[in-house]
């Protein structure tokens, strides 16, 4: 018996059945282009988002490895760096320009391309129709456009790396005047133009996607699927889409003004500027702070755009694998709603030290710390969901538990930073780096991994390799803490972020050894992500085949579809829904799918 035969022995019969159905459903011929490239099937678009997101995650992660190399080994030279980067690493040492370009692109790419497009682009597309019981999105064509605008944004962003004056290097927040004046920084020349074009395309992409998600969730739920029977994933993705639709246009308007300031001589953000070597600029009367208000009006909701989908998926995965209903379903929706509303009212906590009116600042302190309440509710509800459950440690479940751990750790430091009187000390130090990487970066990555491990069988009809999944999890969570936990201490020493070299600073040079340690761990963690990627692509083609329709014994609708659903998802009628998604362990029954009618003798909860 060959290995292949061992792995797939039981699967053939079921697979044949599924294929049989598939052929009945689809008589029209699909070409390679219409199936894999310009596909209008939400599942294929989800995969496109996912794989493009993975590409960016590797590139963005690699960038962080490169700049960590500089931070960890500021005196060393690596001749191979010059081979790769050419003039950006003369003599094997990354130049300050290249360092800042790497930091900036890493931030932009990870926040927008990976954790926005890669995360909600993937799972909103994949899960919304399957979990609400729809055959596709409200507008499959717009959905396709959404991906291709993202693709175009990616192309433009990549091309900016190859510009002679270098990619944009003023930080992912792109504060003017630095981002507005090519004379102040070479990265603000052509590189910034391309950065903004790319971001504009990206905004279009996320608006097309977001409108579609909202329309689909509101209008296309199957019979019986009332809003209060939706799985929490859908609620989370719905709030995410609302946040995006309301806030991205504001960012866009900020960019438009910046384009005018850069190219057409306006003074929205510019005033009283004298550039050494150039002289005084004519612009007067603008406000550099205005941009920050516009930017953070998106920028803060953006944090929740990244975090909410992860929260939703984690809620679902924790419940499924604890074999227990999610605790406080309505409270979970309520807290997500509260987070979504508050997300719009806290943006200025990024601006406590800009000279903001102190009274205004105090209002933002209050509203910011208010967010801790719904966050606390969510954490305690997750913990209670685990309590007295019967936990199966699938790799998806492990990442979900890891998410909760990271969300607690990073969320608590938000209470420090949200309090302006502490922020005045900790602002823009490594404390902030530690905070947002743990709570938003790594935690959301964990949410994404949890989602990938959990829904991979639905996406590709095969399993990911479990052992590699476990290695991936344990190394990543240990590594994440080893990298970011000590950064709190650097922050408490006042060590500023975005520094190329600390050795000239009497106040910050004591961390050289720690920086080297962090860089080393970062490289190991990065290597382990490559192991995950290998597992992903290998398993698409060679993974163990899924032989049962509902491998996790889950209640939600996607598991009532065929193992490899075609375009249209269900063969024949769309299933009808009779209950909420979380009847696990009710009345002694292991699980009761949403499609099961409520029995006469069933208990009420």
């Amino acid at each position: 018996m060959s290995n292949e035969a061992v792995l797939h022995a039981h699967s053939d019969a079921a697979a044949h059945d599924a294929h049989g159905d598939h052929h009945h459903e689809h008589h029209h011929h699909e070409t390679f282009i219409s199936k894999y490239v310009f596909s209008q099937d939400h599942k294929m678009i989800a995969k496109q988002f996912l794989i493009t997101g993975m590409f960016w995650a590797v590139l963005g992660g690699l960038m962080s490895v490169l700049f960590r190399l500089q931070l960890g080994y500021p005196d060393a030279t690596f001749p191979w760096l010059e081979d790769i980067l050419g003039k950006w690493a003369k003599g094997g040492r990354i130049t300050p320009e290249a360092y800042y370009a790497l930091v900036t692109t890493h931030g932009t790419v990870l926040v927008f391309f990976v954790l926005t497009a890669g995360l909600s682009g993937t799972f909103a597309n994949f899960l919304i129709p399957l979990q609400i019981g729809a055959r596709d999105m409200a507008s499959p064509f717009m959905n396709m456009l959404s991906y291709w605008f993202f693709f175009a944004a990616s192309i433009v962003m990549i091309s900016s790396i190859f510009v002679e004056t270098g990619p944009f290097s003023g930080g992912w927040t792109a504060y003017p005047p630095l981002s507005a004046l090519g004379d102040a920084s070479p990265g603000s020349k052509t590189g910034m133009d391309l950065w903004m074009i790319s971001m504009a395309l990206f905004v279009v992409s996320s608006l097309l996607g977001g409108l579609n998600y909202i329309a689909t969730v509101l209008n296309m739920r199957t019979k019986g699927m009332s809003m209060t029977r939706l799985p929490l994933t859908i609620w989370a993705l719905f709030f995410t889409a609302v946040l995006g639709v309301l806030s991205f246009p504001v960012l866009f308007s900020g960019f438009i003004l910046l384009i005018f300031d850069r190219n057409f001589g306006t003074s929205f953000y510019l005033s009283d500027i004298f550039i050494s070597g150039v002289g005084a600029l004519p612009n007067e009367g603008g406000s550099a702070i205005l941009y920050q208000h516009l930017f953070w009006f998106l920028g803060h909701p953006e944090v929740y755009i990244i975090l909410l989908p992860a929260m939703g998926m984690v809620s679902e995965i924790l419940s499924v694998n604890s074999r227990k209903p999610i605790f406080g379903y309505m409270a979970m929706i309520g807290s997500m709603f509260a987070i979504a509303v508050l997300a719009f009212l806290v943006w200025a906590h990024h601006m406590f030290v800009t000279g903001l009116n102190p009274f205004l600042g105090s209002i933002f302190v209050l509203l910011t710390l208010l967010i801790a309440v719904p966050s606390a509710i969510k954490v305690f509800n997750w913990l209670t969901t685990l309590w007295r459950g019967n936990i199966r440690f699938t790799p998806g479940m492990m990442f979900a538990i890891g998410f909760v751990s990271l969300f607690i750790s990073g969320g608590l430091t938000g209470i420090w930073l949200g309090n302006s009187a502490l922020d005045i000390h900790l602002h823009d130090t490594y404390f902030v780096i530690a905070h947002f990487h743990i709570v938003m970066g790594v935690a959301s990555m964990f949410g994404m991994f949890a989602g990938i491990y959990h829904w991979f069988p639905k996406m590709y009809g095969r399993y990911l390799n479990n052992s590699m999944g476990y290695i991936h999890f344990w190394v990543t969570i240990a590594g994440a803490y080893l990298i970011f936990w000590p950064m709190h201490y650097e922050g408490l020493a006042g060590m500023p972020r975005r520094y190329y070299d600390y050795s000239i600073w009497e106040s910050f040079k004591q961390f050289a050894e720690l920086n080297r340690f962090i860089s080393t761990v970062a490289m190991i963690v990065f290597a382990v992500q490559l192991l995950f990627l290998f597992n992903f692509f290998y398993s698409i083609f060679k993974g163990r085949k899924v032989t049962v329709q509902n491998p996790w014994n889950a209640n939600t609708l996607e598991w009532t579809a065929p193992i490899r659903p075609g375009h249209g998802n269900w063969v024949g009628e769309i299933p009808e829904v009779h209950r909420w998604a979380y009847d696990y362990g009710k009345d002694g029954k292991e699980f009761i799918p949403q499609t099961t009618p409520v029995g006469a003798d069933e208990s009420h909860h």
Partner: protein
Amino acid sequence: MTMFLTIAVIVLIFVVIFQIAKASEYVSVLKGEDVSRKQNNKINGFLMVVFLVLGMIGVWYCNKLYFGKTLLAVDSASVEGARVDSMLWITLAVTGIVFIATQILLFWFAYKYQESDKRKVFYFPHDNRLEVLWTIIPAIVLTILVVIGLRNWFLFTGEPPKEAMVVEVTGKQFNWIFRYPGKDGAFGKKYYKNIDDASGNALGVLWDDKLSHDDIVTDKMVLVKGRPVKLIIGARDVIHDVGLSHFRMKMDAVPGIPTTMWFTPKYTTKEMKELTKNPDFVYEISCDQMCGNGHYSMKGIIEVLDQEEYDIWLAKQKPQYLVANPDKDPENAKPAAADTAKAATKVVAKL
């Protein structure tokens, strides 16, 4: 060569992991998926507790290694900064307790409630009392933190005491310029289009304004121990940030929009050298807002002196008006001045 070797080793490790992972998958299929799943479950459940214990030890060890290198190891260098520190300790206590409690619950539950054939799941979809409890308690605790925070915030951002001295700080790529108002206690007006580095007018001061004539411009900030100082902060080109980590203060320098900040230095530089046991100690101003490729090198120095030392230092400074306009400097016009002096004595003698 080493590079290829490293890559080869990494690839080898990958292959080994992959082979093991693949093999374990075959074994699990042959052994029966249920059996191997339960085995994996036991291992991972155990590792959850191991991770919790090692993690807590790691937290302690990290603190042991690095606490001494943070600013908390020595007293705050400003009177107001001490409030930041005490608030920081309170916040640490609150969040620390929550951190330890919730992490223990999370990993302990994961271990304790791992799959077992004997356990019957507790169907527990909601409980209003519990939910109200963990809505109200965080709300109360946060209210306390907000009250403490805002009291400090309004102190920090409020008006400085009347006796405060005033220093103007201007950031530019990539250094700091400081201006003292001189004896008249007022700064001369400035306009950015007058900036001319070559002729000693880096700030664009209007020399027509008489108030500017005694303004002193320096490349280092000198402060007095125990005397509050108000900083008037501006920028010449892009946004910078006056980061004063030892004083626990920070404020952006924005072109076109002046900002302010005040604090009271508590220790002279000399005293800080003793406190930190670092003979090279200096108060550094770090630029804390990305300002271009030289951002990391944008350092300013603050020296805190006693009042007498400060008076001596101040007396030695020459007003920038005289530096920029050497023809107006009496020292440069010595012969003429000497003549006038002689003439004056004559007049006195005659009388």
